[in-house]
Structures are given as structure tokens and as C-alpha cells.
């Protein structure tokens, strides 16, 4: 038999119809939706007189515009309220599962899918959200789609797709102290650029990836889209199976054993061929900080803001010049000298229990710098929030001067009232530093949770490798 990659195995297992010269019709195992991009899809479906084909395979949650303060208060934003009501109505009419804003399982769609075991190895998973790539951490093929495609999946449980090329992204060797999954993926994007993965599905391999927890793997896969890739994947292994067992939507007992046996067939065959291979050496990596207006504009914390003149390509030079104007940064400024107005620990990239534990460890017994206007911790889900509270992490954060909030997308996208004001600068554990992403005129620097936590304490970026409470590699 021909050796196949993880991607090819999942693809082959989901082909419904294949004809030469046409895109392939593939079956979708799990469809996740949220209030922001789904109302038009339901409306289109209704207008065409079509039904939801498999409502039991679609899962809905309210996350993008939810308040992270008091959920029991009325939603004042009429547009947001309209979307919540539409989702509620659409789910009730079609039989789609809904985790509404008061559900104990509510949270960011990409946090709750894995947490509830809805996400499983070998599946095809789509959602009207580009960070759907997160779920690839389980050895699933997961990618973001537009609203027309949401409607297509609702109506047919399938999508027409063109096969992607595959890129093996190997992170060789062990992670050094202070370097997290976030730093690895930022380094990857810094290396290939934000369009470097265009047309590809990434498969992350190598010792450093194997050594990551599921949380870390999710962080890496989450940001695959920021490198332009359609999806990112990690082959399932014992770490995956251990994470899966006992979650609500995961099979139990003998069925679980059977599932594991199947999951074990998924990893790429040893002699499988990738279209491209990129190798990064983990020991060379360092904590990363973005300096510009896309995630590829990134450098090590010990470095300086680059001089646009140092870029060979005139297009890059122009983009860097524009970015530095927007970011109000001067070339040559040490990254550690950049001071901050707000710190945000949250988002589908970095708001899981492991992230909060690591950040809490950095701030325990310390206090947020006086110069900071706000330091925010937004757990990715209500389950994460409850687990963190059971460990007392909320108390550590609050004692250190952080605000401890309810679950949602929050300041990553600023669709609720958690925003940056014009001219403000943030250290953020989220995934996009585009102009205005966290609020019009806001300036975002992407970092890991431990880097954000330390920056909150000092009021500016710090090289956490200088701190003695930073974890080692594994």
C-alpha cells in the first residue's frame, strides 16, 4: 500500500464523491457554529426551503460577543442581543445542540470542542471561524469556512474541497526554558511569513511537538492559519488518548479501546512523502514578541525593533515602515523597553488551564505594575474557569491586580466591551495583531501567557528567562 500522511488518511476516509477535474465532496464529521457568522447561513437555508441534514453533528455556542462580566445582566448591545436570539431560535428550530451564554459548558468554540470531547482524532471538523485549525492538535482535519460554506454543511453535511499540499513542520530537539508552544508557532510564522503556508496543510512533528501537552499542541495548530495554512495537525499519540478518555462526547469502555485502536492507525506512515518540509531547531528558540501589524512581524524578546531598511524586499520594507508608524515604534528600540497599557491573557490560542497555571505561577506574590491601566484574565471556557478556581488561580490573579472574568473571545477581537482604546498598547496572548484588531487604533503585541504575565508585573516586556521561576522544557 502507498505510504500516506495523516492528512491523506483523513481525506481518503471522507471522500463522498470524486470526479476528475472537479473538487472532491468530503463528509464533515463535526460542525461548530457561533453567533457571529451563522445567522445568514440559517436565513439562507430557510429562504431556500432546506433543512439541516444532521443536526446532531452541529454544535453551537455563544462566544464572540458575550460579556465577560455579569451574564445575568441584560445584553445592552442590541445587535449582539439580536445575534444571540437568532442563534437560540435557529438551534431550537433545527435541533442543533446549543451551549448558550449561561451554560456551564459555555466557552470559546475552539476551547469547548476539545474539552467536551466533541473534537476527536481522524475527524473532519469545520467552523465559520479561521481558528478552527486548533482542533488539528488531535489529529483531525479542521479548518475555517465562510458563511456560504456553513450553509452548505448545514444542508448537506459535506463540503466541496480541493486537496491541499502538505508541509511537515518539524521542531527538532527539546524546548529550552521559558519557550512555550506560542513561541514555537510565532517562530514558525516569523520564518515562513503569513502567506508561507498558503495552499498547505501543516503537520507538526519532532521531539519538541511530541513533548507538548494537548494544550500546547492546540496553541500551535490554532495559529497555523496565521501562517496562511488551511489547517495544522499533530498525529495522535498517548498524550492525545489520555486527554480524550472520559470526556462527555468520547466513547466509553470497550468502544473507547476500539476508538484508540483506530486512532493509532492515523499517524503518517514512516515513508510518507510531504510536499515540503521545514525544520526548526527548538534549542535555538527564545520567547517571542511581535513588533508589527501581523503575526509574522515577530522577534525574540532579547532583540530590537527592526529597521525597515534592513529588509531586502521593497514590499516588506514598505509594510514594515507602515507597521512601525501604526505601532508608534522606533527602529532599534529594545523589545524589553516597550511599555504597555493593558495586558490580556485569554483567547482560543492561550486560555486553557495550563496557560492560566503558567501565568499564575509568574505573578504569584507579585503585583501588576502601577503604570498599567488593566490586566485581564479571561478563561477560555466556564469549565476552565471552574477548574482554575478550584485550584485557587483566580485568587492569585486577583491578589496580583488582575481582573478575573467569565469565558469568551473578549479582547482578542473586542466584539464585547473588552477593547483597547486608540493609541493604547497591549501584551496579548491572542493570535492577531492586525491594525485595530483589539480596538480601533489599538496596538497589539502577541506573546505567550508567561511573557504576558511577566510584562504585566513589570509594565514592559521582560525576558522571562531571567526569572528564576520559569519552567524548564518538559
Amino acid at each position: 500500500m502507498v505510504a500516506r500522511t495523516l492528512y491523506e488518511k483523513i481525506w481518503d476516509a471522507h471522500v463522498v464523491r470524486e470526479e476528475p477535474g472537479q473538487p472532491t465532496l468530503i463528509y464533515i464529521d463535526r460542525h461548530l457554529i457561533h453567533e457571529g457568522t451563522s445567522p445568514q447561513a440559517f436565513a439562507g437555508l430557510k429562504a431556500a426551503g432546506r433543512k439541516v441534514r444532521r443536526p446532531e453533528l452541529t454544535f453551537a455556542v455563544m462566544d464572540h460577543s458575550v460579556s465577560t462580566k455579569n451574564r445575568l445582566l441584560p445584553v445592552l448591545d442590541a445587535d449582539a442581543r439580536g445575534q444571540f436570539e437568532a442563534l437560540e431560535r435557529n438551534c431550537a428550530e433545527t435541533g442543533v445542540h446549543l451551549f448558550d451564554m449561561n451554560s456551564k459548558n459555555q466557552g470559546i468554540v475552539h476551547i469547548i470542542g476539545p474539552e467536551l470531547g466533541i473534537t476527536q482524532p481522524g475527524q473532519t471538523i469545520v467552523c465559520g471561524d479561521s481558528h478552527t485549525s486548533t482542533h488539528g492538535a488531535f489529529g483531525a482535519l479542521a479548518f475555517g469556512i465562510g458563511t456560504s460554506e456553513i450553509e452548505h454543511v448545514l444542508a448537506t453535511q459535506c463540503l466541496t474541497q480541493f486537496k491541499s499540499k502538505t508541509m511537515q513542520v518539524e521542531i527538532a530537539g527539546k524546548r529550552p526554558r521559558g519557550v512555550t508552544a506560542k513561541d514555537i508557532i510565532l517562530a514558525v510564522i516569523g520564518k515562513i511569513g503569513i502567506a508561507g503556508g498558503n495552499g498547505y496543510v501543516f503537520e507538526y512533528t519532532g521531539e519538541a511537538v511530541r513533548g507538548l501537552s494537548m494544550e500546547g499542541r492546540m496553541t500551535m495548530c490554532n495559529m497555523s492559519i496565521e501562517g496562511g495554512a488551511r489547517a495544522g495537525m499533530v498525529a495522535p499519540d498517548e498524550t492525545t488518548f489520555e486527554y480524550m478518555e472520559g470526556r462527555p462526547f468520547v466513547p466509553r469502555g470497550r468502544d473507547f479501546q476500539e476508538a484508540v485502536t483506530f486512532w493509532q492507525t492515523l499517524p503518517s506512515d514512516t515513508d510518507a512523502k510531504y510536499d515540503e518540509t521545514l525544520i526548526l531547531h527548538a534549542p535555538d528558540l527564545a520567547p517571542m514578541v511581535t513588533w508589527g501589524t501581523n503575526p509574522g512581524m515577530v522577534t525574540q524578546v532579547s532583540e530590537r525593533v527592526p529597521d525597515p531598511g534592513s529588509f531586502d524586499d521593497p514590499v516588506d520594507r514598505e509594510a514594515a515602515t507602515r507597521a512601525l508608524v501604526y505601532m508608534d515604534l522606533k527602529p532599534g528600540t529594545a523589545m524589553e523597553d516597550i511599555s504597555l497599557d493593558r495586558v490580556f491573557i485569554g483567547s482560543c490560542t492561550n486560555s486553557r488551564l495550563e496557560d492560566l497555571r503558567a501565568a499564575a505561577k509568574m505573578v504569584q506574590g507579585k503585583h501588576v505594575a502601577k503604570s498599567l491601566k488593566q490586566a485581564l484574565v479571561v478563561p477560555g471556557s466556564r469549565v476552565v474557569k471552574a477548574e482554575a478556581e478550584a485550584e485557587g488561580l483566580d485568587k492569585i490573579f486577583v491578589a496580583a491586580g488582575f481582573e478575573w472574568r467569565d469565558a469568551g473571545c473578549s479582547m482578542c477581537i473586542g466584539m464585547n466591551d473588552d477593547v483597547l482604546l486608540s493609541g493604547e498598547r497591549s501584551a496579548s496572548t491572542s493570535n492577531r495583531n492586525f491594525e485595530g484588531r483589539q480596538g480601533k487604533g489599538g496596538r497589539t503585541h502577541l506573546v505567550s501567557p508567561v511573557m504576558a504575565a511577566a510584562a504585566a508585573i513589570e509594565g514592559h516586556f521582560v525576558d522571562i528567562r531571567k526569572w528564576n521561576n520559569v519552567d524548564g522544557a518538559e
Partner: protein
Amino acid sequence: MEPFIKHTGLVAPLDRVNVDTDQMVPKQFLKLQTRQGYGRVLFYDWRYLPGEKPNPEFVLNAPRYKGASVILARANFGCGSSREHAPWAILDYGFHAILAPSYADIFYNNCFKNGILPVTLANEQIDELFARTEKKEGYRVTVDLQEQVVTDDNGLRYSFEVDPFRRDCLLKGLDDIGLTLVHEPRISAFEATNLKHPAMYEAVDVKHHSDSPQSARHN
């Protein structure tokens, strides 16, 4: 969906790489429930000064580009968020075709679902088009999907590639859900064979609706 066969129109140059969909439609406009009406907010933060006063520095506000229906853009156009509000806004503003060296994946897909033709041309061709647009006020091109060619009145003629299936859908304005539903028996057959696999398709536990008293973890 309106078919796209051939379009002639004024070209507006947007000379920036990596224009992301957050710029096309900022988040505050993602809370609506329609597919229409986003033209007014296209490139909102670039286009308007406080109080929605047109920003004279932004290219689309220049009088010479009023009524433009073809966007000339740089590499990786439409990167970032999957929001289909971006192509909705582009179409609603009056654009029917985009000329760029490359596009981000999801945005590219979304264009075809909305009757917008994203044409991919070589970097040098895009450079030449920028030069011509800059030089001649009222510069227009014809984008012909049937012939797969971009032309102007001065002899420019660039052919382009596009996937034949996507081309056909756009030429005919086909509803791709309808196209897929033609294969309903195949979908049913796939489900009959595969949906039984417990690891992949069946939630064995209770469904967690908002009124469920249980927490996510059973332990």
C-alpha cells in the same frame, strides 16, 4: 448568485500587501444578520475619520476612483479572519473583480460563493497594472472569465488561470448547495457505511444543553 461572465470597469489601486479581512470589515460590523449593506463600512477604519468623515488620504475616497468596480491589490489579499462579510462588503460597494498576485485561502473561496472573480496575475503584471492605473485617470480594464483574460484599451492582454469547476459555477451563477444535493444518494450511502463508527460519529454521553445541570467533566 449573480453569474460573472465579463466585466469592464474602473480600477482602484490598493497598494498594500497582506490586506486582512479585519480591515475590510472591522469587528463592530459583524453583529448584523444580513448579507447586504456592508458596502458602506468596507475598509471602515482606513476610509473614515472620526464622525464618519471620509479620510482624504485613503485611495477609495479620491474622486478619480469613484465608481470603481475592479480592485487592484497586492499579495496575500484577504488574509486573516474567515468572515464572509469581507466579500459581501466588496460586492456591496460595487466591486466585481479583484486583481492580485495571491490571495488568502478562505477569502479566495468566499469570493467565488458571492459572484466575485479574484484574478491571480504575476507580480510583474500587477506592477504594470499599478503603473497604468496611476498614469491614466479613468483607467479601465475588462475581465473576461469566458476567455480567461484581462484586457485594456491600450493593448494590454493578460491571460489567467482559474479552476475549471469554479469558473463554470461563476459563469452560470450556480448554487453549489443545489449542485451537492444532486449527489444526495452518495451522501446517504457514505453515511450508511460510516456513521456507525462509534469513535467518529456518536456522542455517547448526554447532550449538554444550557439547562443541563451537569458539568463538562463526568469525573
